[in-house]
């Protein structure tokens, strides 16, 4: 494979070398005529003989002209057939990136100049009085008698001109042929690019950039027009013909101005489009689905409308995904809790039956009693976990009513009278005098306060008091419960409110670590704030709700 590639590149190098040799020969031949002409002129000037314009009995211009033509044709055939082979996958070289229009122009101009230089031009026009145009300078020099000193320099300069000119020409021809063969015309053409830009690419640019661009173009064109008009008056540029003058000074600027203004104004149905777009946006924001893009494709902000349409779709998709996930989560917890509850219920039932049997020994009865207690606490825990999951997933159904905080606390305290009495703790109440109402779900908040009191009873140090107070501050009702902990509280207030977190690392004793988590979630779902303050041995929970007006 490598050898093959090398061979190809070698062949290519040879062919290009040959090509450039032929082109140098070509330029040499081109300059020969000039040199010959100059020689004839020289002879003429110094009387060395009559000017001979014939060679082999033929017109010298025709002979040289035909020579050029055949050489050009030969080179063109070589270029087209051999030197411009394009294989698929070939990369664009430096020359291939030049604008196609420029290459075309240079090729045409080059061909015309070449035809003139070859003197075929004059032969075709049957006008022998003229020599090659660029000879005029030389003739002037002869007349001024500077010829003798500069003849060598002139011949060299003409020769160089030819080499350089023909070289450029051949390069251009090569590029031109390559361009046609490779099909890169559309890609490199300046006009095609501009058209493409305005028809397709511009539509993808951000809207504000486009509006900004349009304004700049409009302003620049206006300044250009003013400058153009001023040039006429400042430099007093007047053309001979009056009609032409009128057209140039008034006609063309007027037409350009009209086109400009029309372009600027007609395109500003922009405001209308913005109105349509804002309507679409407000529809989306109201939560309507399948909002259509009513903008026309020609509109400058068409793409924005499309984007908003898709925005709506993506929003819908993500919402659906989120709802599906939440449902799965709740389903999972519900199922697990149900699956755990069912066997547990039958266990509790059978333990209960066993306890009533007579043949169970005293020890056995003791064991059964312990089993029953543990099963009961497991049952409660599962239930609480289930409730907590329901609340945190937002699936709990709430009955929001105006509540009285003092009433709620007294009711809860009375309800828990037995528990408080058996615990031996004294609960000091310091309730506010006025009855302030706030919005909340009584059943949930009863559980919050119950949990907090239970928590205080469980972890307070024996012999200390528990303080409960309510007060009003900044249009909010506050409830605080404070107790002195019976152990060192080496946790932060954030940590303790987590699920299954217990102050006592050993996890001994009653409780499942869900109490504070439930209290926090339930308070928050009712719209309240929940704060735990730990200061030394003091443990304090602060709940607040906004008052009803």
């Amino acid at each position, binding site marked *: 494979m490598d050898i093959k590639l090398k061979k190809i590149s070698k062949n290519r190098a040879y062919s290009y070398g040959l090509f450039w040799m032929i082109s140098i020969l070509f330029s040499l031949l081109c300059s020969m005529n000039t040199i010959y002409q100059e020689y004839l002129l020289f002879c003429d000037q110094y009387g060395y003989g009559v000017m001979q314009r014939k060679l082999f009995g033929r017109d010298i211009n025709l002979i040289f002209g035909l020579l050029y033509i055949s050489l050009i044709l030969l080179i063109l055939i070589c270029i087209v057939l051999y030197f411009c082979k394009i294989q698929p996958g070939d990369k664009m070289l430096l020359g291939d990136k030049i604008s196609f229009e420029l290459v075309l122009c240079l090729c045409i101009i080059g061909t015309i100049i070449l035809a003139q230089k070859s003197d075929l031009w004059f032969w075709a026009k049957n006008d022998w009085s003229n020599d090659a145009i660029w000879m005029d300078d030389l003739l002037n020099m002869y007349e001024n008698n500077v010829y003798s000193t500069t003849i060598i320099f002139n011949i060299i300069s003409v020769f160089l001109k030819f080499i350089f000119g023909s070289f450029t020409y051949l390069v251009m021809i090569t590029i031109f042929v390559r361009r046609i063969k490779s099909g890169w015309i559309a890609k490199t053409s300046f006009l095609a690019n501009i058209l493409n830009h305005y028809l397709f690419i511009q539509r993808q640019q951000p809207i504000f950039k486009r509006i900004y661009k349009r304004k700049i173009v409009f302003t620049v064109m206006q300044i250009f027009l003013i400058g153009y008009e001023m040039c006429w008056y400042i430099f007093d540029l007047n053309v001979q013909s009056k009609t032409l003058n009128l057209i140039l000074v008034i006609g063309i600027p007027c037409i350009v101005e009209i086109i400009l203004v029309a372009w600027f104004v007609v395109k500003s149905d922009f405001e209308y489009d913005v109105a349509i777009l804002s309507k679409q946006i407000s529809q989306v924001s109201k939560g309507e689905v399948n909002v259509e893009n009513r903008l026309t494709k020609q509109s400058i902000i068409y793409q924005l409308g499309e984007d908003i349409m898709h925005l709506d779709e993506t929003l819908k998709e993500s919402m659906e995904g989120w709802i599906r996930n939440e449902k799965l989560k709740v389903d999972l917890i519900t199922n697990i809790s149900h699956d755990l509850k069912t066997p547990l219920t039958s266990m509790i039932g059978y333990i209960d039956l066993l306890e009533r049997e007579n043949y169970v020994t005293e020890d056995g009865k003791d064991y059964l009693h312990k089993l029953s207690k543990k099963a009961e606490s497991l049952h409660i825990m599962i239930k609480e976990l289930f409730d907590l999951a329901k609340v945190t997933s937002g699936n709990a159904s709430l009955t929001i*009513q*105006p*509540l*009285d*905080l*003092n*009433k*709620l606390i*007294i*009711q*809860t305290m*009375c*309800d828990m*009278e037995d528990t408080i009495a058996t615990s031996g703790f004294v609960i000091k109440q310091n309730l506010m005098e006025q009855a302030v109402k706030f919005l*909340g779900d*009584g*059943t949930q*908040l*009863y559980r919050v306060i119950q949990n907090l009191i239970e928590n205080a009873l469980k972890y307070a140090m024996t012999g200390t008091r528990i303080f409960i107070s309510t007060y009003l501050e900044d249009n909010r009702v506050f409830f605080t419960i404070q107790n002195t902990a019976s152990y060192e509280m080496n946790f932060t207030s954030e940590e303790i409110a987590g699920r299954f977190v217990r102050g006592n690392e050993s996890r001994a004793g009653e409780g499942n670590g869900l109490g504070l988590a439930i209290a926090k979630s339930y308070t928050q779902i009712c719209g309240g704030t929940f704060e735990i303050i730990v200061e030394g041995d003091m443990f304090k929970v602060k709940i607040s709700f906004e008052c009803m007006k």
Partner: protein
Amino acid sequence: MKLSTATKEINVEGTCFNLTATEYKILQLLMSNPGRVFSSEQIYQNVWNEEVYSVENTVMVHIRRIREKIEINPKQPKYLKVVWGIGYKIEKDQ
């Protein structure tokens, strides 16, 4: 559940319980309008006929006593219910 005016007794699913005068009055008030929520102030005014001042505790204590008498499981009351933060009610018959 039936309240007997003459004997000041309450009959819950066939079992009779004696009631004190206050308990009887409270039940009478609540049962006169099943499902309606009575606040402690309302109950106190109707039963004690006295000026209302910090009565929540008193009423709640009586409610607890009644519950202990008439409910099979006082922790999960079936008839006499506390509407937390608002008041008390007798559940409507299904």
